[in-house]
């Protein structure tokens, strides 16, 4: 064999090795130290909460000898940036991320999450069973759920009183209240759907009250098609009818989540349809009394939609898995859980003694609801997007935006939801 031939073969082998090497997972994580972990969370809605968290984590660092580098990303960038970071091997060791197949499930499918099944057994973590299911993929528990939440309508009690409006007991009353507010120059419902996920939450609220918890379970589990008349009616009511009647801000698809909230805080809008995670922000930003009600059903006061929000996950490539697990264990300590509840108004997914907590009327109401939901004693609808796949969520979010912009009808979007559901579940 001539030198030239040998060189050519060596080059080919190197190229082939490099090509196949490209398919072999991701590089080690950022910190590179077994006693230091990077912890990424979404930017808290209330900026002061970040400093509180830093101080709380400093206590853990002192007692454990583990260094925790806390990083934040704007909430809307967390899904896109984190996934890319993890795939390129430069992601954090521990991070907060939404649960369910459409979010953490995508990371699980890509092999980006550390298996915590053994850690659960060794540390006897008391996460609610229903919550643990949301972070279990292919029989492996891959995260620690840490945010129980409900979805409903926050309303400005002062504006309601000023315009002689009481809590709506059904959809017709909500319609009447919204018409009254609009006539008075108040935006009835602060709703911005620029990011798209807000539409999914609103559909969850509407469906919860229209078809009940069992009806939603049937939808999510494929026993009832998404193209059914109830889904079409729910989409039609809020995304078409309410929008055309001017109950939502103009160009809702151009308004981001934060700006929609700002409309509510400033008193320009009387209601805000979103989740209980906003309580902390509301307490800080609203200088009026706020009530929290479920999205009304056609003939009833309705029920709250609810479920699990975010969870905490560990990168599959972390060089510090033991330190990460110790950190997760501390996050579930009773002391830290009380800190979460009292300081951040965040509700963990395991039993917490809140008997001595001075939470204020709004958060007390939310605590009672989530307590009922967690123990299985109340009737709650489901939050769709944490239970469905990414393909379905994309179809839902884009589809509902299209109804708001008038490009597609509720029936077309409902049909698209069913098609996406069938495609993503292979049914």
């Amino acid at each position: 064999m001539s030198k030239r031939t040998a060189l050519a073969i060596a080059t080919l082998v190197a190229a082939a090795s490099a090509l196949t090497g490209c398919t072999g997972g991701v590089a080690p994580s950022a910190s590179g130290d077994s006693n230091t972990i990077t912890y990424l969370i979404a930017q808290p809605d209330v900026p002061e909460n970040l400093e509180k968290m830093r101080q709380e984590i400093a206590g853990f660092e002192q007692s454990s000898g583990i260094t925790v580098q806390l990083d934040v990303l704007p909430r809307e960038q967390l899904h896109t940036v984190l996934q890319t970071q993890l795939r390129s091997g430069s992601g954090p060791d521990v991070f907060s991320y939404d649960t369910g197949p459409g979010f953490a499930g995508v990371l699980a499918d890509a092999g980006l999450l550390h298996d915590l099944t053994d850690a659960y057994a060794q540390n006897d973590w008391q996460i609610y069973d229903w919550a643990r299911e949301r972070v279990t993929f292919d029989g492996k528990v891959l995260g620690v759920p840490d945010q129980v939440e409900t979805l409903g309508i926050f309303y400005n009690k002062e504006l309601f009183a000023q315009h002689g409006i009481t809590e709506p007991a059904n959809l017709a009353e909500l319609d009447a209240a919204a018409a009254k507010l609009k006539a008075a120059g108040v935006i009835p419902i602060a709703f911005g759907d620029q990011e798209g996920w807000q539409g999914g939450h609103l559909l969850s609220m509407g469906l919860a009250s229209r078809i009940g918890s069992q009806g939603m379970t049937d939808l999510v589990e494929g026993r009832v098609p998404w193209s059914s008349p109830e889904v079409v009616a729910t989409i039609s009511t809020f995304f078409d009818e309410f929008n055309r009647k001017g109950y939502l801000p103009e160009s809702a698809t151009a308004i981001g989540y934060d700006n929609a909230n700002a409309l509510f805080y400033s008193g320009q809008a009387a209601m805000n349809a979103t989740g209980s995670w906003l309580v902390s922000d509301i307490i800080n930003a609203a200088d009026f009394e706020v009530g929290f009600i479920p999205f009304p059903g056609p003939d009833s006061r309705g029920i709250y939609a609810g479920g699990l929000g975010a969870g905490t996950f560990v990168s599959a490539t972390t060089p510090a898995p033991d330190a990460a697990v110790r950190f997760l264990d501390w996050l579930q300590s009773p002391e830290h859980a009380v800190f979460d509840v009292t300081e951040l108004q965040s509700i963990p997914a395991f039993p917490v003694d809140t008997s001595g907590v001075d939470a204020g009327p709004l958060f007390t109401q939310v605590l009672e609801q989530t307590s009922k939901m967690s123990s299985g004693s109340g009737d709650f609808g489901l939050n769709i997007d944490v239970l469905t796949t990414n393909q379905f969520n994309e179809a839902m979010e884009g589809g509902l935006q299209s109804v708001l912009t008038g490009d597609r009808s509720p029936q077309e979007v409902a049909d698209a939801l069913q098609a996406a559901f069938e495609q993503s579940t292979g049914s």
Partner: protein
Amino acid sequence: MSTATATRSVLAQTRREQGRLGVLLVAPALALFGVFFLFPLASAVFFALTSWNGSTPTAPFVGLANVREMLGDPAVWHALGNNLQWVLVGTAAPLLIGLLLAVLIWSGVRGVLAYRLIFFLPFLMPPIAIGIVWGWIYDPVNGWANRLLEAVGLGELARGWLGETGTALWAVLLAAVWSYTGFVVVIFLAALQNVDLELVDAARIDGANAVQRLWHVILPQIVPTFITVTTVTLVGGFSVFDIVFIMTGGGPGNATAVLGTYAYENAFNFSRVGYGTALALLITVLSLPFVVALNRVQRRLALRGMGGGAP
């Protein structure tokens, strides 16, 4: 050994040494070309022929299935339509505005340096920052765009620019044109320094007006620069991603989706790295004919001796 033979031997040795030196000199560039261009390209082609999901150790080979899927995927055609609009307007607008501004500045305005800085500044801003800032400008609640319209009595035109199907793509495109025009201005200004002023003066004396001087005297002297800028802008139109991703994420619905955002969505949101890579390659394949054609035009013009010199 005769003198002639000795000379030939020395010449041959010199040629060999020159050859070796040539290889040595070219080797670093070749290595960089191989590592940063050929290898990624080969990887992309490889993955485009697979159904890899981004995590499995092996990438199942599917041949041309991704290409067949692309051809029948309505979302691809929709995104391609948006790309074509972007290419047409996103290329023509910065070129025309940039050329006019450059000629105006070049023709004797005071404070050329200040103008250069002002126009070039947006090009130095990262697309993420541009996207965020223009997102604020377009915000229907607090944005300047609507407030400005209301202030000048055009309040009925106020709308959610990024939230309506009919305006979203154009609103993003306007932000991109704003950021890119400064680059075109600076490049054209550099080229205009090489324009023969005697020819311009002669044309003026012969009675040519400003437009005629621009079209018949100035433009022919900067054609190579014009083509270079056109090529860069045009390719940018096919590969546009960041500013669309930041400002609208492809929405509302999929109104502003371009091939870049659709490729990202497939590769990262749906874990369809193979299909996403095939879409990314489609962007390259679509750009290539334009680049080759413009390159040929530029070479032909150079042979004819046209142009005051590329920057």
